[in-house]
């Protein structure tokens, strides 16, 4: 039964994929369509609320080793703290479907923020995968940067080392930090698109 459901699901997806607009709706350099999310505290955010500010979207799955790679040594929290301090909006998004590994409820998310010291602006439980699919988020962590004008400025990996080892963070180029720094300095972003690495988003 699950198998036939899976087959149908795959077939349905393939169909969607075959339609002309098969790609995620958002492409680097293009305007991000308006979207609305509700965070784990119950606050509603619209993309347009953040006009003029740079936004980071971080796809999260607390159990994914590649996420753990950046959370265990507090690398991700450090980035969150540094850039939210520079008036950047940082949304940590969990598109894990209910029942899948890494899925959290809003309460669990709040507890986790506390426990792990997550410093992002808001944690968004996107169990339906709506936001994830809008952006074509494939991995955790898959990172997106939206500039103040609402255009997608960066999409891809958090850094240049795709291993799951925390000790490799040092020495890797952090593309998100580089993109945010370039935006702040009004300079063009050198690397605007990379292959995201990590676990699959568990839609």
């Amino acid at each position, binding site marked *: 039964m699950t198998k036939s459901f899976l087959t149908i*699901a795959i077939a349905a997806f393939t169909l969607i994929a075959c339609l002309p607009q*098969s790609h995620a709706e958002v492409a680097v350099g293009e305007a991000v369509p308006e979207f609305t999310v509700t965070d784990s505290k119950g606050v509603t955010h619209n993309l347009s609320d953040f006009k003029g500010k740079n936004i980071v979207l971080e796809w999260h799955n607390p159990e994914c080793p590649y996420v753990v790679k950046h959370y265990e040594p507090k690398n991700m929290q450090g980035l969150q703290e540094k850039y939210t301090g520079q008036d950047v909006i940082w949304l940590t998004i969990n598109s894990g479907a209910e029942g899948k590994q890494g899925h959290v409820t809003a309460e669990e998310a709040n507890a986790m923020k506390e426990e792990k010291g997550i410093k992002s602006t808001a944690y968004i439980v996107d169990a339906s995968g709506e936001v994830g699919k809008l952006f074509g988020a494939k991995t955790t962590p898959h990172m997106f940067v939206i500039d103040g004008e609402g255009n997608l400025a960066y999409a891809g990996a958090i850094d240049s080392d795709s291993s799951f080892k925390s000790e490799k963070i040092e020495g890797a180029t952090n593309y998100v930090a580089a993109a945010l720094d370039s935006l702040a300095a009004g300079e063009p972003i050198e690397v605007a698109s990379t292959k995201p690495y990590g676990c699959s988003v568990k*839609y």
Partner: protein
Amino acid sequence: MKKHLFVFWIMASLLAGAFFIAPDRAFAMEGATTLIAPQVSQPAEEPEKYVSVQLIADQTQGLTGEETITLGIVQRIAPGWHIYWKNPGDSGAAAEVEWNAPDTFIFSDLEWPVPKKLPFGPLMNFGYENIATNFVTLTLPENIPPMPFQIGMNIDLLVCEEICIPESHQASIVLNGTVPPSAEIMEEMRNSFPSDKGWDAAYSTRGSNFILSVTVAEGESLQGAKDFELFPEEWGLIENVAESSANIDGNVLTITQAHGERDFSEVPMSKMVIRYTDGQNIPRGVRVSAMLEGASASDIAKADGASVDIFLWQALLFAVLGGLILNLMPCVFPVLSMKALSLCKLKDKEEAKARLSGLAYTAGVLVSFAVIAGALLAFKAAGAEIGWGFQLQNPFVISLLATLLFVIGLNLAGLFDFSGRFAGIGSSLVQKEGASGSFFTGVLATLVATPCTAPFMGVAMGFALTQPALISMSVFLMLGFGLALPYLLLAYIPALRHVLPKPGPWMERFKELLAFPMFASAAWLVWVLSQQAGSIGVLILLMVFVALAFAIWTFKNLAAQGALRWIGLSAAIIALIFSAFCLSSLHGGMMVPGQSAGADQNWESFSEPVLEGYLEDGYPVFVNMTAAWCITCKVNERIALDTNATRKLFETRGIKYLKGDWTNQDPEITKYLDRYGRTGVPLYVYYGPRDENGARPEPKLLPQILTPAIVEGEITGS
């Protein structure tokens, strides 16, 4: 069928396992790290692992140095779990290996077996289940002492079911010890690796599609192959999860899949693995190095429905053939025959004169082609949306050509002989054999040849226009060479001239006869003009004909008689001015689209919004791109499209018939042609109805030569 590969794998791995368990006992005495079955190598306190790793080699004994041996990293994977290929797809990670051996040991990069598609929800990964082996080529340093030594490695890999677990493994192998070689098993494992065929491959983007085209090398075949799956080693070239479609046409394999998120200009070259099932139902993999191209030659050949791949030399050959065929066109044949007959008058001793004439004629043709091609390329480079036949999209050019053909017709028919004072354009069709006369005959032949397109030229032109300017120019020049070739041969080989009938009074009759194909060509151009400039345009052009004929007649009859000479001359000049004025009025401005639509018209004019509207509403749609000056188009319409049977077929199937008229410039149509790899008309595309799942099949390109059966076959899918 695809399972074969993996059934084999499991068997191979069982065999391999048997080899490994046997030699265990040997190692204690050699003081080397024991090679034991990895399943038991995990210390009890370590978490459970989902992959076990073993290192094997094709040569293990009697190594003295400088040998090249192959190592195999065998990774057995727990049921339901998978590991990743070099390009893991949407998520995941490829294994990373570090070798533990002195620097003098040179290890190659990992070789990867043919991967498998591993769908996961809306994502697609590329990897392996059950078992996978990477090969590595190790070049040993010189002078290895005959003692056991160990090669060790560390491999970091990611193993996933639904969740992912990173694992680190160590493995090693002792060489020059008692470990037996695994050459036989590794030889069989080779079957699961893609073979590097070195086949020519190129990829390009068309609309939202990624297109890979692979030319199978001579002597090899993909006959009967199916179930093609594409695995680019570079990320982001394809939408990994999208379905691909494969098409084999002759020796060209084309795989189309939705375009990935990456800007292709970042990736000028990528290796790609193509997995397929061959004619004997055996799973295979082939690896090619594909170069990025704007549009590859084979795409064009494919889009044209030609069963051959077009290489440069083939395009050049086609161009020569096309040029040869042009000689037989009704507009060119008379010019050439008169020129050829003039050669017969030359005595054999006038060999040099004949040769000079041949060369001059060829030069005239080539220079004219170079001018036309140069103009075309310049327009294209300037970004104009034009294709082959662009010259004919201008009613002024059409009128000039029609007038030219008409005047030549009058000359052939005997109304007048060109005399010295008309020296210039084709002044000496028969009378003079001077080099300049021959040169201008070449120019004339080219001019009158332009309205005639030969079937062979379509492919060559299509190829030419997608190529760099140098190649385009070569193709055009070869076309010209083909046009000039018969005359050139006649000029150079006296024996050929002897085959021609002896000159005599019959030549005069023959010359007059040749006037009629000229008039026919002119009449056809008048009709083309009627499509471009309406009935007024036709009237003006016909008036030009009359005025010119009158001017020529007055010149001929009155020029000799002193008294009336001036009256005649004035009349002739007035007629000429009138002609020039009329012709110039056709120059732009007067475009009136043809209004030939009758009450029973079963088509609508093509436009992108109309097409999109119909496609969205789920109608099947047939698109016909045509032009009044395209004879093939008109013949196809008459024979295959505008027939009662086809009309009925369209009606019963609810097919919306859209016709795009490219008689005049139309950037929208040019863009549409370009989408299907064409630079000219005709183009027929059929968009089938949605199937029961609501999916629309890929649009079908119909051949350039249609019959009712072809149309019906493509539409009914039989």
